[in-house]
């Protein structure tokens, strides 16, 4: 695993990524400017928000219980808030 304290001599040549499966290390949520808020009392756990999420950022358990958001992955697009028929997701400025 590389880090930004490493110098030219230590870093792998030409930025080669030597290990696969590293996309999990990239926090795509870093540049979000609005974040979704889960309003539990309105939520019917219908799972309508899960499918349209482009970042797979809706966290739910095996019994289809909506648990909240993966804010490392969520880019704040607001699709989940738009599709929710029960006003159980609102968008808030970061």
């Amino acid at each position, binding site marked *: 695993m590389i880090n930004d304290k490493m110098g*030219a001599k230590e870093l792998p040549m*030409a*930025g*080669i990524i*030597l290990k*696969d499966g590293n996309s999990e290390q990239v926090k795509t949520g870093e540049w979000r400017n609005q974040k979704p808020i889960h309003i539990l009392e309105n939520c019917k756990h219908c799972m309508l928000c899960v499918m349209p999420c482009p970042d797979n950022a809706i966290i739910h358990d095996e019994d289809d219980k909506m648990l909240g958001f993966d804010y490392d992955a969520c880019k704040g697009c607001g699709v989940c808030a738009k599709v929710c028929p029960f006003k159980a997701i609102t968008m808030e400025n970061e």
Partner: protein
Amino acid sequence: MIRERLSGNEAVAFAMKQINPDVVPAYPITPSTEIPQYFSSFVSNGTVDTEFIPVESEHSALSACIGASAAGGRVMSATSSQGLSLMYEMLYIASGMRLPIVLTCVNRAVSAPINIHNDHSDSMGVRDCGFIQLYCESNQEAYDNIIMAVKIAERSMIPVMVCYDGFITSHSVENIELLEDSVVKDFVGKYEPKHYLLNPNEFISMGPLDLQNYFFEHRKQLADAMTDSKKIIEEVSEEFAKISGRKYGMFESYKTEDSDACMVILNSSAGTAKVVVDKLREEGLKVGILKPRVFRPLPYKDLTNALRNQKAIAIMDKADSVNGFSGPLYSELSAALYSQSISIPSINYIYGLGGRDVKETDLEEVFRNIIKISKDGKVDKTTNYLGVRE
């Protein structure tokens, strides 16, 4: 040792046959066309195992080289002029990704106006693209440098461009000494990249996004590798001398040991200059020439040391930087001399653009001018255009 008579392009295609690379993607362009042409016949005849990819443009040619090299193959191609210009974007990617591709550049003028003949505008125009650049005077040097380039590239992990003069070298038939197939095969050996995409035991990504926190360090890696490649070029050249008897350095000097006035000149024109040196030596004039072989990395200490005792220098550019000052070789060499605190009166000539014939009498005029400068130390005009009609 095999004695033959080959054109420069035939010699390079023959070297490529002996090297037997994994992949050769190429697109034809004058005067380099014969290289992929001859090579594709070797592919058709089954004399090589190479995957030959006839692509739709030079941009695609170098892109395919990059893909094949990243996959782990030994890769070669050839181009000229506009073809090299069209490769421009991919040249930086090849070097930035540290892929040891060997590219032959048969030097030709760059449009406009359109012209198919020789000058060095193409390779000089991409001198900062991160390729090692080797320049060749003759067919023999082209053949030898192509074989050495494979090893130099793979040891330094920097792509190598081998440059020689279009038509003058590429199409003229000269006597040449070729190495046995097995000698070349043993010399280049098997390419064993440390990391490559088709390795089933390692799952890597190459050429990823590289932003503010890392890009600078990766460029420094390339810069260091370019500096260090000088030693690799010296080592490979020594190893080549053992199998061929032909020794190559960073440059060739001709009668410079006691010369007062020296001409610095690349490629085939150096041959003409040697004839003029011999002629002027008969008159008792102390002249010599220095012919750089390696332009990238610029062996600035070696070159400046070799020039240290001259009283006047003419630096010849077969390419114009169109910068209001001088040609590229002059800009770089005069800066190198200054960096070593060497102050010698020097003059720049732009010559032979678009294949304008450079005769002995033209170069004699230059020598007579620097002989004069070596005596009075006066340079009237730094940059001059040799033989142009004003």
